[in-house]
């Protein structure tokens, strides 16, 4: 395998969790809910995926556990913001704080244990093809899920009636309610979908990317995923592009670190975070683009008047 091929492979591995978490959050935000708890749900998915895989011996059950835990954990946020109409920013933050705390407690006995790795796909013949073989036919299963999710969400949001309804709720929840659309129910489902995606993204970290549990192993990826949604102006295909851009930055800085060059490693490690800021600035300075694409009800609590 050539160097270029292996770099592309690792970029895909670094981009996949960002892509999945950001896609989930995109659906949540399209429904008008801003869930800042992505980091917390992701780290819960990572720890529960790892623990479940370690206890059952099956990485697949780990993935399943991460998805379920992510969705259940997001319900905490859903109940407070949707049923009790709390401030979404503050509640999302508290979901992240709680997730980081809980995951540390759950994973305490598992730090340093060798983990289960989700096996990569291998199709005899196809996976051995030169150049594209490993890239297209030899990735980990969650990579294929992330691509399927991208396509599926595009189809759902822009080609189905339910997707149209979801977007209308995000743009004007009062009108949607007046039309008889169950706003809160849609939003619950969206929030749970976002939680499941964040959980899956976390499982990718602890079962594929680095198969082990380290406290705070998400290292801000949940927040970068949130930034990606803004960067992508709430469009799935642009989330894909953005995730791979960030994957490339992450992998690029790791390779430069390995080569030395005398650049402090901490400076290089901060590149993904700095890149997030730069990218956010570049996108948001175009006020028209942001105004046109931001779901108009984003972050506003909705209490149906009866």
């Amino acid at each position: 395998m050539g160097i270029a091929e292996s770099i592309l492979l690792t970029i895909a591995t670094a981009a996949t969790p960002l892509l999945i978490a950001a896609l989930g959050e995109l659906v949540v935000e399209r429904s008008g809910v801003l869930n800042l708890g992505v980091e917390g749900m992701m780290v819960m998915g990572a720890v529960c995926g790892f623990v479940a895989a370690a206890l059952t011996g099956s990485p697949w059950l780990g993935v399943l556990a991460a998805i379920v835990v992510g969705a259940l954990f997001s319900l905490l946020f859903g109940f407070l913001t949707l049923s009790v109409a709390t401030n979404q920013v503050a509640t999302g933050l508290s979901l992240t704080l709680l997730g980081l705390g809980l995951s540390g407690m759950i994973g305490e006995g598992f730090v340093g244990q060798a983990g289960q790795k989700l096996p990569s796909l291998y199709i005899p013949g196809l996976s051995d093809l030169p150049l594209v073989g490993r890239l297209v036919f030899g990735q980990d299963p969650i990579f294929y899920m992330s691509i399927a999710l991208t396509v599926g969400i595009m189809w759902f949001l822009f080609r189905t009636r339910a997707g149209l309804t979801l977007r209308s709720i995000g743009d004007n929840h009062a009108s949607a309610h007046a039309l008889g659309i169950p706003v809160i129910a849609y939003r619950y489902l969206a929030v749970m979908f976002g939680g499941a995606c964040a959980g899956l993204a976390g499982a990718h970290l602890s079962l594929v990317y680095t198969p082990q549990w380290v406290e705070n192993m998400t290292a801000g990826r949940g927040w970068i995923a949130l930034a990606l949604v803004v960067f992508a102006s709430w469009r799935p295909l642009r989330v894909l592009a953005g995730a791979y851009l960030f994957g490339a930055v992450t992998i690029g800085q790791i390779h430069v670190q390995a080569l030395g060059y005398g650049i402090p490693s901490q400076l290089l490690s901060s590149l993904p975070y700095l890149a997030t800021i730069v990218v956010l600035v570049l996108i948001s300075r175009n006020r028209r683009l942001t105004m046109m694409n931001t779901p108009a009800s984003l972050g506003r609590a909705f209490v149906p008047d009866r």
Partner: protein
Amino acid sequence: MRVELIKRPQQSALFSAVSPFIALALTLVAGAIMFSLLGKSPLDALYYYFIDPLREVWSLHELAIKAAPLILIAVGLAVCYLSNNWNIGAEGQFIIGAMAGSILPIIFPDFQGWYVLPLMLLMGIAGGAAYGAIPALLKVRFNTNEILTSLMLVYVAQLFLDWMVRGPWRNPEGNNFPETRRFHVDAILPEILPSSGRANLGFVFAILAAIVVWFLVTRTLKGFEVRVLGSSPRAGRFAGFSAKKMVFFAFMLSGGLAGLAGISEVSGAIGQLRPVISPGYGFAAIIVAFLGRLNPLGIIASGLILALTYLGGEAAQISLGLSDKVVRVFQGMLLFFVLGCDTLIHYRVRLVGFGAKPAVEGA
């Protein structure tokens, strides 16, 4: 079963006062359940968490040491949140403030005298305020979401501190340990009552800051501006208030206070810079701010409570072998309950069974 909210015509004065206490009580109950799930006696655990640290004078000093940064940061955050500016990067402003103030004792160790400490404190405030001004500038100038930028800057600050402490600022006589030289005597924050414990002037700063900001928010025009722009930007514009200036004001005030907390922590409790100087004060302070209902005087009380959880966590770890990770779970639960209970101020809550379906629903 479903929860139904009915808007109150006016905020409930009763629930404004008691909602933090309901939240605390619920957190204690949830905590007791969690401890019994972990196989510990809930009463013992709660005792070590909330009573044991209060029994000795030296321990009260430790409480003041932990509470000082929490109160300082939270008071600034309250102004931010009241004005609807979401600064969640106080942890980064804390670190940069600590580093800016530490320049004097680390780079110029021979520069000594009574004036060193005041200069350090001013530099700490300036450093934190400058770091807080970055998300403010990006928000005002480029319309960039301040939540994400202020948080990203936390990671950048942590890595920057790590680099400086392991690299350029490492103690030349320190056997390669990742720490800076120890601060000289003139750069150490004095203790309040050295005979009974370690508590330093940082706690005095925290109380002063809380009182000053309380006066600012409740008794001055600037405070009125903060609240008007926070609750209704449109009304604020009609009143001639500048939302842009408010962004800078809020971020630089909270950044400056976080910076003061940072330099007070390193020149008081720690006495040098290390790769990690905060057990997450910047994030715990968000909880403190909300538990204090964004009121600076309430924040003094809530800061002490959160500080108690840190001390209690240590006590429970030593006495019961409870993991120190439990503290953060506790703090996270507390914020959830606080936010949930605040709803009682604005709404009456009714539980509706499945049977009773309002006529409006069902398309």
